[in-house]
C-alpha cells in the first residue's frame, strides 16, 4: 500500500506539471484582456470563438484568420475548437464553459444546425452578440430557444458549385460526369452539388451521384468503382478537396489523369499544390481565413454600435493551373481582391 500511496502522489505531481504548463497561457489571456479595456476606456472587444475540429486544415486556416484579424485590430480573442467533426456535445460543452467567462461577443461555427443552440441560449439571454460563421444555425431551433445571431458569414455554396460546373463545361465541353458529395443529406454538400448540377444542366451527362462522407479514402474507393462502371467518364466533381484528392489518386491509379477532369471545392493548401502539379484539374477556393477574420470584424462592428448586414457572403475563387502559384503565394488569404462588406462602413 505504501507503494500505492507513492504512485498516487506521483500522479498528482504530473498532473500539477501539466496544469502549470497551461496556466501560463491562461494567465496571458487573463491579464491581456484587462489592459486594452483600461486603455480604450471600455467596450474593447473580448471575443470568444468556438469552431469545428482543428484536425482539418480548413478550420486551422479559420483559426489563423480569427487570430490575425484580432491581432491587427488589438481585440482579444480566445479560440476553442471541437476535438473532431462528430464531437457535437464536446463543442457544446466548450461553448457552455466559455459562456461563464467574461466575453462580450461570440463567434460560432456549429458542427450541426442545432448542437450549439442550447449552449447559446444563456449567451443570447444575457444580450451578448452572436456572430454565426461558416455553418448556419438551424433557424427553427434557434427561434425556439430565443437565439438570434447578429449575422451569418459564409460561402455561398451553391455559387461555389456553380463555378465548378462552369469550369467543368469549359474543360470537357461534353460527356459523362459523376458527382461525389459529403455526408448524405448534409446541407453544404447538397448546395454544392445543386449548384454544379444547375451549371452543367443540358451540357453534360451526370451518370451518378454518390456520397463519400467528406473522406479521402472513401472517395478513392467510390471513384475507382464509378470509373470501372463508366469507362467513358470524363469528369468528377467532389464537394470538398479531401474527396477531390482521393478521386485524383484513383484516376492516377488507372492512368487516366489526362483524360478525366477532377474539380473540387475548398482551396486547401494541399489541393492548391495538387492543382499546381496537375493532379487536380481545379478547385473552387473558399477562404476560411477570411470567414474567421470577418467573424472578428463583425463582432467589433457590433460592439462599436454599427449596423451590419444579416447575411455576409465570403469570397470564393476558381483556382486552375494558371493561377495556382499565385493562390499558393497568397494562401491562406485570398489572391484576388474582393469587396469587404464590413470595411465600407
Amino acid at each position, binding site marked *: 500500500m505504501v507503494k500505492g500511496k507513492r*504512485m498516487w502522489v506521483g500522479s498528482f505531481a504530473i498532473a500539477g506539471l*501539466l496544469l502549470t504548463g497551461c*496556466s501560463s497561457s491562461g494567465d496571458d489571456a*487573463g491579464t491581456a484582456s484587462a489592459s486594452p479595456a483600461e486603455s480604450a476606456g471600455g467596450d474593447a472587444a473580448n471575443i470568444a470563438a468556438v469552431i469545428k475540429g482543428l484536425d482539418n486544415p480548413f478550420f486551422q486556416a479559420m483559426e489563423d484568420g480569427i487570430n490575425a484579424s484580432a491581432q491587427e485590430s488589438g481585440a482579444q480573442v480566445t479560440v476553442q475548437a471541437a476535438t473532431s467533426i462528430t464531437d457535437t456535445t464536446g463543442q457544446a460543452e466548450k461553448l*457552455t*464553459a466559455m459562456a461563464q467567462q467574461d466575453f462580450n461577443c461570440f463567434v460560432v461555427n456549429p458542427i450541426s*444546425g442545432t*448542437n450549439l443552440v442550447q449552449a447559446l441560449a444563456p449567451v443570447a439571454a444575457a444580450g451578448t452578440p452572436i456572430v454565426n460563421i461558416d455553418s448556419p444555425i438551424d433557424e427553427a431551433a434557434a427561434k425556439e430557444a430565443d437565439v438570434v445571431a447578429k449575422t451569418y458569414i459564409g460561402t455561398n455554396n451553391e455559387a461555389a458549385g456553380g463555378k465548378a460546373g462552369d469550369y467543368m463545361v469549359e474543360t470537357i465541353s461534353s460527356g459523362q460526369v459523376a458527382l461525389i458529395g459529403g455526408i448524405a443529406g448534409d446541407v453544404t454538400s447538397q448546395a454544392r452539388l445543386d449548384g454544379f448540377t444547375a451549371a452543367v444542366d443540358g451540357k453534360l451527362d451526370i451518370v451518378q451521384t454518390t*456520397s463519400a462522407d467528406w473522406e479521402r479514402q472513401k472517395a478513392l474507393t467510390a471513384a475507382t468503382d464509378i470509373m470501372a462502371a463508366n469507362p467513358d467518364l470524363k469528369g468528377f466533381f467532389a464537394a470538398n478537396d479531401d474527396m477531390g484528392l482521393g478521386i485524383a489518386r484513383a484516376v492516377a491509379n488507372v492512368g487516366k489523369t489526362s483524360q478525366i477532369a477532377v474539380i473540387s471545392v475548398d482551396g486547401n493548401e494541399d489541393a492548391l499544390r495538387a492543382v499546381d502539379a496537375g493532379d487536380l484539374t481545379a478547385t473552387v477556393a473558399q477562404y476560411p481565413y477570411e470567414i474567421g477574420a470577418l467573424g472578428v470584424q463583425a463582432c467589433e462592428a457590433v460592439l462599436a454600435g454599427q449596423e451590419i448586414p444579416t447575411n455576409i457572403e465570403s469570397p470564393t475563387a476558381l483556382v486552375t493551373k494558371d493561377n495556382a502559384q499565385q493562390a499558393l503565394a497568397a494562401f491562406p488569404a485570398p489572391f484576388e481582391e474582393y469587396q469587404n462588406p464590413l470595411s465600407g462602413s
Partner: protein
Amino acid sequence: MSTVSPAVTDAGERVGLGSRLASAPWPELAAPLGLVALIIVFGLLDPTFVSGGNIEAMLQASAILVVLAVGQTFVVATAGIDLSMASVMTLGAIVLGLVYTGTDNIWLAMVAGVAAAGAVGLINGTIIAKGRITDFIVTLGALSAASGLALIISDGKPITVLNRAMLKLASSGIGPLNWSVIIAAVVAVAAHFALFNSRFGLHVLATGGSEESARAVGVRTARVKIAVYTLSGVLAGVGAILLVARVGAAEPASNTSFLLNSVAAVVLGGVSLFGGRATIIGPVMGALLLTALVNGLTLLGLSQFYQPLAVGIVVVLAALLTRFQK
C-alpha cells in the same frame, strides 16, 4: 455497509471492513480525491471554474457520461465490457428521432429509443452468455453494427428534434439542478441500491468475482450476464434521450469519445476490470472528474489538442492505481 457487501461476495479476496479502512482503498479514492484536487487547482487558476454557473454547466455536461458509466459499471462488475455503448446510444437517438418525426409523440419516441437500445443490449448479452463468445468481440461487432444500423435507418441524415419537452429537459429543472442532472442522479441512486441492496446486485458481483463458484452456489450466471448487457443497453437509451435534448437533433455520426470516457470513468472509479468489485459512486465521480478536467482546460484556453492527452494520462494513472492494490 454498502462497501462491505462486494468484499464479502468476492470469493477471491475476503477483506473485512476494518482491514479495508486500514489499507485505504486508493483505487476507490482516486476519483473523489482527484476531483477535489482538480477543483482546487482549476479554482485557483480561474475563479470562474468554481462559480455557480460553471458548476451547473459541468453537472449538466456530465449527465450523459454518468448514465453511460453506470451502465458500463454493471457490465464491468461481471468481468465483462460493453464497447458498443456509444454507438448503441447513437442508434437509440436515431430511433427516437425517427419515431418522433413519424408520430409527433415525444413520449412514444423516448420509449422507442430506449427499447431499441435495450434490444441491442439484450442481443449482446444473449450472444455472450449463450453463445459463449468473448464480450470484447461481441460488443465490438455491435459497435459497428449499431452505428451501421443508425446510418441505414436515418439514411445518414441528422434528424432535428424540435420539441418543447425536450428543450425543457435540457434547459430547465428544479432550482439550480437541470432535469438531465436530476435524471442522471436518479439513475445513479437507483443503480446503487440495485447493486448493493438487491439479490440482482449480489448475483452480479458474485458472477464477476468467480463465475464457477457463483454457479456452484446456484447463481444463474448466464441470466445475470444477459441482464447486465440489457441494462447497459437501456441506459445507453436513456443517454440517447439526454443527448438528443442536449444537441437538439439525432445524429447518425457516432460520438466516439463517449465510448472511451465511459470505460475511463469506470476505471477511474476504482471498479476492478476483473469483475467482482464495484461501486456506483466511484464511476460517477470518475465521470464528474473527466468532465471537470475538460471544462477546466477549456476555461484556461488550452488548445483542445491537449485535452485528449490529459484525459488519457489521467485514465492510465488510475488504472495503474488499481494494479497496485492487487
